[in-house]
């Protein structure tokens, strides 16, 4: 099949970007979206042009590396699917696909379709864990956890951190990502001791990173490759409200966001 790919090309953050259209005449419907870009890149390389930079790694939908907008939808039209598992048979012969990077102030552009998502790592740094050091643990079965709770925690923990929720949100909010971690740990008994503090700190970090606020629109849930439930948003709000109320100090300090790549910045 024939396709036109209109792709955002931008050399680096400082450079000016633009859309460039490429025609592909021999697209196999069995290819994944990323393999389609591989073919394009092979052609470009052979012509001595710079290939399109796009992030990818496992190519089986679990690492969370890949992702871009395909004609206005994060990860493309197929629900619960990352671009690496999206096969081209879901498009029609002659289609024009517009490929754009995730657009968010908190995801500064690196190159072409690649953005910098270290802001998500910093949200996890701000309490997205159980503070237990290696060795200091009781027997695995010492703490029974009902199947229902374990399953719900697993539903929330399935997040792959791809950033599609932020990209799709009209507000540019990272609430689904943050809420998923708060819900995962907040549901489990292991997560209780730090539940209040965790929610307060992670939300503060999310705000400090410059993500937008959640107004419960619901686009995030629709594009989430792991179909994280909007329930996690409510849990985050509740834990945050309770946590803020109980908080005993006036201020919550956030980690300062870093966007550079210099030796002292990484």
């Amino acid at each position: 099949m024939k396709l036109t790919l209109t792709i955002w090309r931008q050399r680096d953050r400082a450079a000016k970007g633009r859309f460039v259209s490429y025609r592909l005449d021999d697209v196999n419907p069995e290819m994944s979206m990323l393999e389609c870009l591989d073919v394009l890149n092979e052609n470009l390389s052979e012509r001595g042009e710079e290939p399109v930079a796009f992030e990818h790694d496992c190519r089986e939908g679990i690492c969370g590396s890949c992702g871009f907008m395909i004609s206005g939808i994060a990860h493309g039209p197929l629900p619960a699917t990352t671009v690496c598992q999206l096969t081209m048979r879901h498009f029609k012969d002659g289609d024009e696909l517009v490929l754009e990077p995730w657009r968010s102030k908190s995801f500064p552009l690196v190159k072409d379709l690649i953005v910098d998502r270290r802001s998500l790592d910093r949200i996890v740094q701000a309490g997205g864990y159980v503070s237990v050091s290696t060795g200091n643990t009781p027997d695995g079965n010492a703490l029974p956890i009902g199947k229902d709770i374990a399953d719900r925690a697993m539903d929330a923990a399935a997040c792959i951190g791809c950033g599609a929720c932020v990209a799709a949100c009209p507000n540019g909010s990272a609430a689904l990502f943050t809420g998923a971690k708060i819900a995962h740990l907040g549901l489990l008994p292991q997560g209780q001791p730090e539940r209040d503090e965790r929610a307060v700190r992670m939300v503060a970090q999310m705000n400090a990173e410059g993500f937008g606020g959640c107004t419960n629109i619901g686009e995030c849930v629709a594009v989430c490759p792991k179909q994280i439930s909007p329930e996690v948003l409510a849990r985050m709000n509740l834990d945050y409200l309770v946590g803020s109320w109980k908080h005993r100090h006036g201020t919550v300090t956030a980690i300062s966001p870093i966007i550079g790549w210099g030796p002292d910045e990484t």
Partner: protein
Amino acid sequence: MAVTGAILFLFVVGHLLGNLQIFDGASRLNAYGRLLHNLGELLWIVRAVLVVCVLLHIATAAQLAVRNWQARSVGYRRKRSINSTYAARTMYWSGPIVMAFVIFHLLEFTAGYIHPGSRFTEGDVYHNVVAGFRVWWVSAWYIVSITLLGFHLRHGIWSAFQSLGINHPRHTPVLKLGALWIAGLIVVGYISIPISVLLGWVR
């Protein structure tokens, strides 16, 4: 935002119940108007609470809007919505329009500064309403604004629960449906008045 929204929602419901007395005739509505006026300080307390809520609601919304606007400094060339209601995406539009309407509405029916079509008569609520709505564009403006208020409530009612941390796979769908119905009933209730006036059922 959820809390102030909830208080304002209560006002919207109370105001509607009061207004619907128009169908019971002039004396009933005017008596209700007098009752409110006779509340004295209490009325001013209620008004103050409402004004504070409105201001807070606007302030938080503006704050959020600025933040959200800044969160995406470079926009998409193409962006499609796939799972959200029109109401949810347009809260920033329906809100200010409803606000503009409320100001007009207060000037027209409470203060009487603007009262096209006839002379504003202090105390004769029934007359003011009926005369006001006979002007077609006043009614049209009212109907459009109330419909937008409906949209605002359709998202706002269930969203407030979500913001306060209440979500349940079994109950939230019921809540969403409920929000749609409540918003719908409120719109129908309010716009029944100008429509009745225009059709001459209430004169």
